[in-house]
């Protein structure tokens, strides 16, 4: 086994029971990411959206994750404490299936960056009802596997094409760059 390093993991804990649906998180997120900073705000640009349905008591703050080019083939539904949630209510993807997490004018995907440069994400800061709280923890992460993986890959290539051909290709590729 290889060495391990300590990595800081930032996470936001979402307590849906505490959310009062005020959407201050959406407001401050869009203001922070405006250019210049705080010069404008617009919840439609926010990287956090409260998926809500007040009459059915559904309040789920969701953070923008990765972009996906295609929506899921099928959908699930979750029933939690008697309340029915669409699967998408918990999904972080910027996805063709919904308007969330896309720049309203360009349609480009948005992704939460944990408010880079700030002590903690501003949505957490502005959520004084504590529906959103910030947690930072250290995790030990192995650094080796990636190298091993590369080695295994190269071995497979050498097996298939022979050492000379592989070396030749690698040197041609490196001289190009």
């Amino acid at each position, binding site marked *: 086994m290889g060495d391990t390093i300590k990595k800081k993991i930032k996470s936001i804990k979402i307590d849906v029971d505490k959310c*009062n*649906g*005020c*959407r*201050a998180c959406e*407001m*401050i997120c869009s*203001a922070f990411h*405006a250019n*210049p*900073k*705080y*010069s*404008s*705000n*617009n*919840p*439609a*640009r926010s990287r956090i959206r409260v998926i809500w*349905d*007040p*009459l*059915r*008591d559904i*309040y789920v703050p969701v953070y923008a994750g990765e972009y996906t080019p295609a929506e899921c083939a099928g959908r699930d539904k979750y029933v939690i404490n008697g309340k029915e949630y669409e699967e998408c209510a918990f999904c972080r993807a910027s996805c063709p299936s919904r*308007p969330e997490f896309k720049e*309203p004018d360009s349609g480009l995907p948005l992704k939460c960056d944990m408010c880079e440069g700030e002590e903690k994400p501003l949505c957490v800061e*502005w959520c*004084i*009802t504590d529906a959103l709280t910030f947690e930072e923890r250290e995790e030990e992460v192995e650094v080796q596997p990636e190298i091993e993986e590369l080695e295994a890959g190269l071995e497979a290539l050498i097996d298939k094409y022979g050492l000379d051909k592989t070396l030749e290709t690698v040197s041609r590729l490196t001289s190009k760059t």
Partner: protein
Amino acid sequence: MRYAETGVYLEIDLSRGNIEKVQSDPKDTELYLGGLGTNAKILWERVPPEVEPFSPDNLLIFSAGLLCGTPAIGCNRTIVSTISPQTRLMAFSMMGGFWAPELKFAGYDKVILRGKSSNLVYIHIHDDKVEIRDAAHLKGKGAIETADLIRKELKDPKLQVAAIGTAGENRVFFASIEQGRSSASRGGIGAVMGDKGVKAIAVRGTKDIYVARPAEFLKLCQEVMAYIQWREAHPIPGVMPILAGLGSPQEMKVHDEKWHTENFMWGNSRVRRKDFWNEEIAKKWMETLESMRTRLISCYNCPMKCGATITPPGHSTYMMKCFSKLTYTMAAFSDLEFGLKIAQIATEHGVDGFSAPQVMAFAVELYENGILTDEDMPGFPQGNEERFYWLLEKIVHREGIGDVLADGTYWAAQKIGKGAEAYAHNTIKKHEQLPLKLSMLNPIYFLMYSTGEKINITQIEGQFPQAPFPTREAREEFVKDWFQVPHERFKQYFLDWEPRGEKSMPFYPTVEMCCDIVDWQERMHYIDDALGMCAGLSSFPLKPPYHIHNYPKFISAGAGIEMDEETLTEATKRYRTLVRAINIRRGMRRADDKPPENHWKKRFPELEKQLLDAYYQMKGWNLDGIPTVETLKKLGLDYVAKDFLERGILEGA
């Protein structure tokens, strides 16, 4: 470049189906700020006094406040203005929630409705796209139900919908405009919406709102947030719980209703039940609220949780806040379970939570006293609660006696006659008031009740404690961190104010002090109503986060209009006078400026005369309550002066 506001009004002519986007004049923003201020300007210019409330020429204006949609915490109110069918004066009811910021994000400061649609329609606004859509399928639907149906029909769960229920469609004089989370209820503005044939306005916006000086503005917001947190941790000692903290009175949170149930009147604002509250009732009401309340909820960008989602057994879910929790309960001499159940139906029908229960209690009283009979009310049930459900349906559908009652207690009494007038005893300017009857005249409240143009005490009181504190020590403690006062002298007024003795009511605070105190309270409400700020974080509670010292900074950094306390006060005075002028032009005079006859048992006619005289003088009005030519010109309201002279309302010099 416009900051805080979008600079665009949406003008919709319902008669012709015409939709226009009109640039507003930035000069108007400087002079009248926005919201109520600019609404008043438009009503003055375009709705002359000859226009009837139900004329196509009456306007119904939905306005976001100047700072709605900016990061200003709690700034989310929609100010709806029109001519009220009930008072026949200017109505400016407001609602919190999410509608106003959404309108801003769609790119508009106001929606101005004129004309009348021949069939029931609803308006759909999605950024630049605005359409008038058929609403035949929504006829007779509840206000909350309508919002849900529109969201489904347009497949847009993010739409914010302001809708009327059956009451508005049938032009009930106390019909509200409901927005799910809150409503604009006072003055019968829902009836005007129904008269125009508009069931709902659904809005969705995805555009930016800019502020002029971002870093400065954000710092101001952070200060407000920090102060809210501090204030929440430091409730004011010595006042009852609902007045100790911030926000709208926290009725959805509080279980102890001893104060309301024993001090406010039951029935048709008649009976005080001094020993009502006991352990058994406390336990039962707590169980009721706990079992029906699913969640405490907020309006847009506000950490306060003034509202709640309520699900009474066998009824649909609705949202409620503040004192409508008890108005139905107390009007019917019933319990909280009944109150929360009938309020669900009333919210769907879209009626005002102050007027509706009072009108029904008035009808019951008339029946019990033989003025209304079985002949007038065939099928009137025997059971008390059943009677209220029965009356509510009759009223919102304007069926039988309901058609008479739907005009409110004042007009209904006129029609019924036979001495019914004496039972319509709790109105000011024909508008039903809080069910409150007290003993000793409070001179500050006398002025506010008499002159409050919103005709609703909760929309003018605030800032200054409602009653003196018992000890000097407690008063000294209170003034220590009372930095919200416009001037140090207000602290002195309060320090010297005693519950008994020489410096007690009604002769202390003195006439001049009372005018000063009322002027401050009124000014803060007028600022809120132009900016779209919730009174719960500003003009209503004691020691609020927004006040006369930081408001000019918010306007400067937010809207880019240079403003100090003096210019802000001047602007407020300008549109406060303009609201007065609209009402004066519609015939309101000194004789109308009075509280309900029986509001206080102990009255002081000479003192009351002095109070009104002094208040008018301070405002620059003549003794009949009409702003003078000199005052109008000083405020840049020369056009009002000219009109008053032409109409003979004022005599030329």
